[in-house]
């Protein structure tokens, strides 16, 4: 007999709404993260008095705008039970491809499409290798990480590419209603991505595939097609982020984005994705990024010496995730579970 699940720390009088909605909310990683993010923000504002200023927030938002776009694709890959290590390299390749096109006087929209197309191609190859050749995602995307980086370095001979048409900079440097276009673009992609992952029937299949691949297949889901789509989307978004990044920095650097994959995966995991698949939201990943961004910014605002910043960052990350994991386990244990 499974008894109704209740929270020991909530009075029964709190009613079904509290238990249902707020209860579920409190259990979500996103909620813990928002609380931590707000607390960090308030603390930094109180201590430094400089945190909630337009230039500082602008700087933080710009700092993770392109990463946020990549997070959307990575969330898909993680939820499907894999991950994509090639995003950092595809990020560079997308930018380099678009830069080459732009310098060859290809019209701007077509150049963007070419840059993004390079990412689509890389993602498609990832997806095909993972599904049809059955190479595991780690090796496949690690290989693609090398290939995409190699292509970027080879076609540029390692040099950065500048001299892009100035009209192209509007995406990375322009502002609309005083908000950087880059931030607006990234935010739209994140919101659309989050909505699709939550509500679209096609994206819903990703959760099933990551939850239990065999059960998904036996439930009539075309597992291969879902995975190919996931990796293609991840490649597309990484390359798009790369194109936007060269619009911001005015320079395409074939060496850019090194280590980006780990930062993105870390943000997604902090945001509630599971490396075992089946779990996670785009918004969670975004909150993970914001969390890391706030801490990075905060460490500098607090004038922590540079030599201590990485250490502090590591400690804060482990504390945050560790606390969250433990609190969930405590909750679980206190709710108890009677096996028969």
């Amino acid at each position: 007999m499974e008894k109704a699940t209740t929270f020991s720390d909530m009075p029964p009088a709190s009613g079904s709404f509290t238990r249902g909605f707020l209860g579920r909310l409190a259990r979500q990683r996103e909620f813990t993260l928002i609380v931590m993010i707000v607390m960090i923000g308030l603390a930094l504002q109180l201590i430094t008095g400089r945190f909630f200023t337009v230039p500082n927030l602008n700087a933080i938002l710009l700092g993770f705008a392109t990463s946020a776009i990549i997070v959307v694709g990575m969330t898909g890959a993680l939820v499907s039970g894999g991950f994509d290590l090639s995003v950092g390299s595809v990020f560079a390749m997308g930018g380099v491809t678009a830069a080459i096109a732009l310098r060859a006087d290809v019209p701007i929209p077509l150049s963007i499409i070419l840059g993004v197309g390079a990412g689509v191609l890389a993602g498609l190859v990832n997806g095909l290798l993972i599904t049809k050749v059955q190479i595991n995602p780690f090796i496949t995307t690690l290989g693609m990480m090398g290939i995409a980086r190699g292509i970027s370095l080879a076609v540029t001979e390692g040099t950065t590419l500048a001299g892009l048409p100035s009209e192209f900079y509007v995406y990375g440097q322009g502002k609309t209603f005083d908000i950087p276009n880059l931030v607006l673009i990234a935010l739209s992609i994140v919101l659309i991505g989050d909505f699709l992952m939550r509500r679209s029937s096609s994206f819903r299949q990703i959760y099933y595939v990551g939850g239990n691949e065999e059960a998904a297949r036996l439930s009539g889901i075309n597992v291969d097609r879902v995975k190919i789509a996931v990796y293609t989307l991840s490649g597309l978004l990484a390359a798009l982020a790369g194109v936007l990044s060269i619009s911001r920095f005015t320079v395409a650097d074939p060496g850019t984005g090194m280590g980006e994959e780990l930062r993105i995966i870390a943000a997604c995991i902090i945001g509630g994705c599971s490396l075992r698949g089946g779990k996670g939201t785009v918004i969670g990943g975004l909150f993970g990024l914001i969390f890391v961004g706030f801490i990075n910014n905060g460490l500098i605002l607090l004038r922590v010496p540079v030599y201590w910043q990485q250490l502090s960052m590591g400690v804060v990350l482990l504390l945050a995730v560790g606390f969250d994991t433990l609190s969930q386990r405590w909750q679980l244990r206190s709710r108890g579970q009677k096996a028969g």
Partner: protein
Amino acid sequence: MQPLLKASGISKQFPGTQALDNVSLELMPGEIHAVIGENGAGKSTLMKILAGVLSPDSGTIEFEGKPVTFLNPHDALMKGIAIVYQELSLVPPLTVAENIFPGRLPTNFLGMVRYGALFRDAKQVLDNLNANIDPRVPVEMLSIANQQLVEIGKALSLNCKVLILDEPTSALTDHETELLLKLLRRLANEGVGILYISHKLNEIMSLADRVTVLRDGKYVGTDSIKGVHPDDLIRMMVGRDLGVLFPQKSKQIGTPLLEVKNVRIAGSDAKNSFRLYHGEVLGLAGLIGSGRTELARALFGAEPIVEGEIILNGEEVKVTSPKRAIELGIGYLPEDRKAAGLFLEMSLKLNVAATVIDEVSSGGFVVGSKERKLAEEAVQQLDISTPTIEQEIRRLSGGNQQKALVAKWLAIKPKVLIVDEPTRGIDVGAKREIHFLLRTLAETGVGIIMISSELPEVLGMSDRILVMREGAFVAEYSSSEATEEKIIRSASGQKSE
């Protein structure tokens, strides 16, 4: 005689659940004592308390007449109480010997393991169990039955006086079960006290000396097996008269629904043909590994069909993938609930909706209300016991998980439903409900193919029975002519006398 193990007034509360309420139990030396109850009755919680995994809120445990408390499972093991779980706790890549003596491997003065001595000691333990197992092979290469023997060997090598077994036969063949029960009987004769949890009443009737029944965390009663009838036990377990375990069979069978002609699947030479009629429950009997599951998966498009025809409602169809099968109205409830059926960490709601994502969507987006309605109807129709439809399915009992899986297949409105071991490892109440549900479904015209290794179930449910051996059909019996003996003979290839 003094009891070997005595638990008195044990209570254990989890928030929202009184898992155990003043439960008592006595185990005599040399006794086999069965503990039964429906899923959620508190059997496992009680065993975990006796094995030191959980500590009770109140109550006392006496071992050989002295009160004891266990700090942890290791402590209990060292004091002489061992538990063998449903999910075995061996380390698969290590050898049998290393698994029998974990943490106490014989070493030389350099701290290196003396493998010669280790294998010798292990061999002795296994010989004592009459187990023909090579102590040098990795445990992962053994059958489940032999792995269980290794677990028991591990317990006995510590001179355990109490052995707790939780559903030890749920994954064993009949022959393996027989051997295990014989071994347990022998161990009991040597003075070991055995606590035995099982759903299988016939096993308990033939094995146990006494039986204790739990229900909803409460102690219902203890009886000597002699002079108790299985029906009494069922009544004690469910707290009401269950009536019959199997529904009435169908009075009349309809027109042909599915016709399988000379179908051969990859890796087999056999070509199989059979018909399934509207409203029929067709039982597929056979030993484990006789090819029933493979055939079922092929009909569902999950394995390739090399040659042959499948005719559904008079039209030839190609079932190329599970997706196609579902479009055609063919459903398949897999035998391994956890590996192939459930999305364990997802909600009941999402599990039920997995086969019909498009039906609960509109314009490419999932409609929350439709999805909820589907799940709520399933909960109601199948009487699934769950706090909410948002509950993670792994937190439900086995019976409720299985009902949710059935609901998932009902959602496609199947014409043909293939169920593979539909009641494995679930309690008798849920079992009965699933039986009646399948029959109700058949009465609406659905054809049901039921694979089961439990002969009473095959006999009790099927309108017709096909027996498979080595990938091919070897016999067909109507409901009236089938007996357990005939089926066993056909399945094992013995000539009738």
